[in-house]
């Protein structure tokens, strides 16, 4: 029943989509992280206008589906003549950059809540001790607040990265040819649904397990004090 030759062919067809999927994910996660930190700092700044803008941003981007955000950027922006005349148009007419923009803005909203949680989790006593030792400003952030916040936020951020890998599949809805787009193409041309699905699923699972493993390794390195407990097994359950 299983046609090994066809499975191999599916694999050969879908594999070229992996760099697009990974590139889209890596780019939107890294730029999105910078944006997430800025949003989290705005939330914690205690400056009402900044806090309000960041709150509204997170509310809108978490309250609407990513698909409609991507459609708005890809289909919606193109109808304005001033956008077609702008220097950004060479980027905004490419599905890749539209997908990147939507993914980046979306993960920034979810990520900012994770970063905020991480920053809030830094024990007050640690900050006080650092201040007593004469640290302040950037030094305090670099040595004390940053590392502790990063460590506490990492597991949740790892989940966010995996959700982003899955979310890159939505780029196929705006015509970008990545892993899901290629699988859909096989399905619609050959109608051999199960083979194409299985191959694409295996590729996504491989990517996500690798990422979950990497996050676990980094987490372990950053938490030497917790190492004996973590010696059990990596949590590969891809928790949401």
């Amino acid at each position, binding site marked *: 029943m299983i046609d090994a030759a066809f499975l191999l062919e599916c694999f050969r067809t879908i594999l070229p989509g992996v760099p697009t999927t990974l590139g889209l994910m890596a780019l939107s996660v890294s730029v999105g992280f910078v944006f997430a930190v800025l949003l989290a700092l705005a939330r914690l700044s205690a400056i009402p206008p900044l806090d309000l803008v960041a709150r509204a941003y997170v*509310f*809108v981007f978490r*309250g*609407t*589906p*990513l*698909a*409609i*955000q991507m*459609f*708005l950027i890809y*289909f*919606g*922006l*193109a*109808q*304005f003549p001033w956008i077609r005349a702008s220097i950004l148009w060479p980027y905004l007419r490419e599905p890749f950059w539209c997908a990147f923009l939507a993914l980046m803005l979306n993960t920034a909203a979810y990520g900012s809540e994770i970063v905020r949680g991480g920053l809030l989790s830094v024990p007050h006593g640690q900050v006080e001790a650092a201040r007593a030792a004469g640290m302040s400003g950037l030094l305090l952030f670099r040595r004390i607040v940053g590392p502790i916040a990063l460590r506490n936020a990492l597991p949740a951020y790892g989940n966010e990265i*995996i959700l982003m890998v*899955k*979310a*890159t*599949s*939505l780029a*196929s*809805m705006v015509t970008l040819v990545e892993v*899901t787009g290629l*699988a*859909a193409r096989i*399905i*619609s041309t050959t*109608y051999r*649904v*199960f083979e194409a*699905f299985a191959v*694409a*699923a295996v590729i*996504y*699972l491989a990517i*996500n*397990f690798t990422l979950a493993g990497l996050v676990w390794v980094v987490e372990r390195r950053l938490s030497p004090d917790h190492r004996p407990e973590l010696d059990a097994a990596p949590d*590969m*359950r*891809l*928790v*949401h």
Partner: protein
Amino acid sequence: MPQWLIDYWALMGFGPTGWGLSMLRAAGMTIAVSSAGFALGSVLGALAAWGRLSGSRIAAVISATYTTVIRGIPELLVIYLVFFGGAVVLGWIWRTFWDGEGFVSLPAFVAGFIAVGICNGAYQAEVFRGAFRTVARGEIEAAAAFGMPRALAFRRIVAPQVLRFALPGLGNCWQLCLKESALISVTGLVELLRQSFIGGRSTRDFFSFLLTGAALYLVITTVSSALFAAAERRALRGLKRA
């Protein structure tokens, strides 16, 4: 009134040329398909959680595989699998057992809610499992000591508490359902995203339609999170806050 608002109302209002009614109907479709998906997800999630907790090794492996695989692959892929795979399987049954001819396919609504349900069930399973852990062992032992059969103890002691503790997590799952339902538009089901796209295409004003669609999604998610918050307050009313 400013001109743009008049134009917008002509486009999105409820007049003869307005798309208001179509948009609201599509929003209703989004809620309907998400609700059906959420309900199926609850059944699958409860089964998977039970599989993990039952003590049976096979059941545990099956549920762990289900939750891990589904949470590791894109929802869109599951939608393609159910929609096109459903057509293949149905077509095969139709030709083999009824000597039927031609092409049979799963209705987009059915395929859509099944796909959303399969995805959501994997997340709900984790929510139920976590909630079950919070039910004190002693209470189950006490029920057994009273001579309650397991089914009765489940109905009277375990289920009400699991539901109570699962409510916040289930609220998150419902939000996921709503957002995933937008992906069903690839099957041609006219829900909110599809309707916004159709309207945008035929009036060449994607921006207004997609922005209106996004606003309607925002209304749905905001109202439902308020409803879940109210349900949580009610369910936890007898509990002291830690």
